[in-house]
């Protein structure tokens, strides 16, 4: 015990002098830790950390790609929709224009037909009037001649003279009619 005390006392003199057995044990202990970590455990965990990093980055990339695709599809749809709207507007416009033209055409056609009918009517009336006037003149002449013949008692055989007399008579009648109008 006494020897141990003196040994301890001499050893106490300088705590900065390393004890060789402790140094050896310390180095061995550290070597064990270092070998386990450097050779086995850290490479293993590094691999997993790398895998995880890749998985996360891959996920992000995938999400980005999906987003880009969604964006492009959306734009496509929007463009299509705008085009469809434009097309519909164009068709509507065209239909309106066509309708207007059709109406105008039909109106013009109607007008033309009306005018034709009216013109045809006029012509017919004129012709009828002329025919009626002619027939009337003949009838009136004949009746007047007959009447005059009966009255005068002599036959007005002379055709030329007869005609002249009748015409004169009728002209007078017409003049009278003109004057009274």
């Amino acid at each position, binding site marked *: 015990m006494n020897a141990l005390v003196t040994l301890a006392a001499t050893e106490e003199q300088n705590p*900065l002098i390393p004890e060789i057995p402790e140094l050896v044990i310390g180095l061995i202990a550290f070597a064990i*830790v270092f070998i*386990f*970590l450097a050779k086995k455990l850290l490479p293993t965990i590094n691999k997993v950390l790398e895998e995880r990093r890749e998985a996360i980055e891959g996920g992000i990339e995938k999400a980005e790609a999906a987003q880009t695709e969604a964006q492009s599809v959306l734009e496509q749809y929007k463009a299509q929709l705008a085009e469809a709207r434009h097309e519909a507007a164009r068709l509507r416009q065209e239909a309106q224009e066509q309708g207007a033209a059709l109406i105008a055409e039909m109106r013009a056609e109607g007008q033309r037909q009306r005018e034709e009918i009216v013109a045809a009517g006029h012509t017919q009336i004129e012709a009828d009037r002329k025919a009626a006037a002619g027939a009337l003149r003949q009838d009136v002449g004949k009746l007047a001649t007959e009447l005059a013949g009966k009255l005068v008692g002599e036959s007005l055989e002379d055709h030329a003279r007869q005609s002249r007399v009748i015409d004169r008579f009728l002209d007078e009648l017409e003049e009278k009619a003109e004057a009274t109008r």
Partner: protein
Amino acid sequence: MSADPTQVLAFESDCHIFSGCGFPAPGLHSFVFKPLFTVGGFEFNKPMLLALLGTVAIVAFFWAAFARPKLVPGKLQMIGEAGYDFVRRGIVYETLGKREGEKYVPLMVSLFFFIWIMNLWSVIPLAQFPVTSMIAFPAGLAAIVYILWMFLTFKKHGFTGGLKNITGYDKSLGAVLPVIVIIDFFSNVLIRPFTHAVRLFANMFAGHLLLLTFTIGSWYLLNGIGIIYAGASFVMTILLTAFELFIQAVQAYVFVLLACNYVQGALAEHH
């Protein structure tokens, strides 16, 4: 001083205030351990046991977390990844860059968790001793970094280039060049590994002494009116334990950060 210099735990003595017993102050003797067993002159003591147990704990944790990793991590794997990522991104990539640094990630991760767990023993009940407060442990780790630094320096720049890199050789300095070379040689080649190891050692050493002082104090004062003071001392023990938890992590971080800085210095173009 009536304290037995060979005592290991403060509570081994029945020494209290007002009982004619002096305060068994902690000191250098608190860092001397009776061997647990001896194999052919090789004395196996408590710090060594803790070092090996810590090693088992670290390997077991990372084995459980990383051996069968999943793309979608479980709780343990997530914690492991957070720790791994902290050192990888937070320290190595920050100092060495992603491309240069990747090679040194395993070493730095091992260093960080090894040192942190060895520090953490300080507040683990029953163990309550930071392995890194024995200079041999930080010295071994600092030596590894030092050798790596030297190796990289001379591998990258050749012999004269390496010497220039280490000594901060720069012609434009003119007359002060020899002074700079001498100072840089001392500070880099001779003092750097020493400060690298001692920074960690001294922090843990002092932290352990602080905790011991208040722990022993709480026990020692536990008599008569002293009980009130024992309570204060006990509160201090709790607060310092929390503080030590912080320091332990910080020191592990600083050690690894410095190691990365040294490596970066070795790889950098000399001016």
